[in-house]
């Protein structure tokens, strides 16, 4: 009976660590995406900071990384888990909105928008595009893990005996 409780604790800690790792790698991969190319006679440089959507993605994921790091150290039976459930929900929403915004702008970058006369840029800076795609994939994994963690913390708040039951 105690081993199941211990297994649950380890599983929860592992999930939190995975979430922390996912958001951290999303930040790192997006922040180091940088490419210079020459199109016709122009010198084109692509960086994540040129677009406010990617900046929002980096900022949101770094905030969640710091939160994920701090919450790894919360002891499992303290009363702060109610607060942790609320902040979990807020940060999950933040992550979802940031990845949706980054996806929208990345889709314009890849396919362009013929109605607004916006040409796709992925042909000239393919390495940048691939790195941004990788960052978005890792961000999506982080979103899924955070949704699972949110359900877990709400269950933990509503039923505080979950970790003492056999």
């Amino acid at each position: 009976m105690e081993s199941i409780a211990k297994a649950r604790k380890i599983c929860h800690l592992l999930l939190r660590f995975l979430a922390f790792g996912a958001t951290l790698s999303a930040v790192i991969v997006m922040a180091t995406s940088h490419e210079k190319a020459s199109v016709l006679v122009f010198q084109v440089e692509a960086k994540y900071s040129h677009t406010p959507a990617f900046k929002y993605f980096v900022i949101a994921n770094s905030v969640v990384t710091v939160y994920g790091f701090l919450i790894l150290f919360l002891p499992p039976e303290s009363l702060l888990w109610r607060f942790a459930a609320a902040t979990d929900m807020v940060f999950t929403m933040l992550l979802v909105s940031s990845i949706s915004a980054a996806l929208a702008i990345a889709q314009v970058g890849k396919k362009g928008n013929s109605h607004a006369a916006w040409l796709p840029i992925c042909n000239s800076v393919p390495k940048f595009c691939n790195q941004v795609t990788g960052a978005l994939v890792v961000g999506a994994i982080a979103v899924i893990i955070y949704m699972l963690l949110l359900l877990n913390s709400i269950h933990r708040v509503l039923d505080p005996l979950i970790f003492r039951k056999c």
Partner: protein
Amino acid sequence: MASRNVEKLDLSFSAVPDKPKKDWVIVYLRILAFLATASATLVMALNKQTKHFVVATIGTTPITVSITAKFQHTPAFIFFVIANGVASLHCLMMIGVDILGPQFDYKGLKPVLIPILDMMSLVLASAGDGAATFMSELGRNGNSHARWDKICDKFGSYCNRGGAALIASFIAIILLLIITVMSINKLKPKK
């Protein structure tokens, strides 16, 4: 004397039988959230502007080209309309469940389903919002590094209506957040 005792007994028996107290606050909030999401959906879905541009002049007759800005041109706005549409349908369904609900017996998984569905519609609405916000920011300011021109100086009322739909969607997200927290709170086992 006896009749007075009978009267007193009658009064005590007409006390309120135990009926669960209906929570009207959450129903009002759901109605407000339904209005907000429905208006966001409608304003964005009917967003269209046509403008005529003079391209060239041959002799004295100008050649005009009419360009239309519609919400379907951008996948981000399509997602915004779909997400807010789903959220408004969810709010409508939850209003129905709250008003007609206490007639049916809630057992098993059903009480948990309401907060889970609330959370899902909240997440969907916030995703649609994020995408549409940054897309309209791109339309308003353009992006000089990628050589994407801004379109809001030509299609002013299209952009303004999109902005109004976004504001309605932000209000809807705040309301949905409050509703979600309240419905999760309802799940607490009463001591």
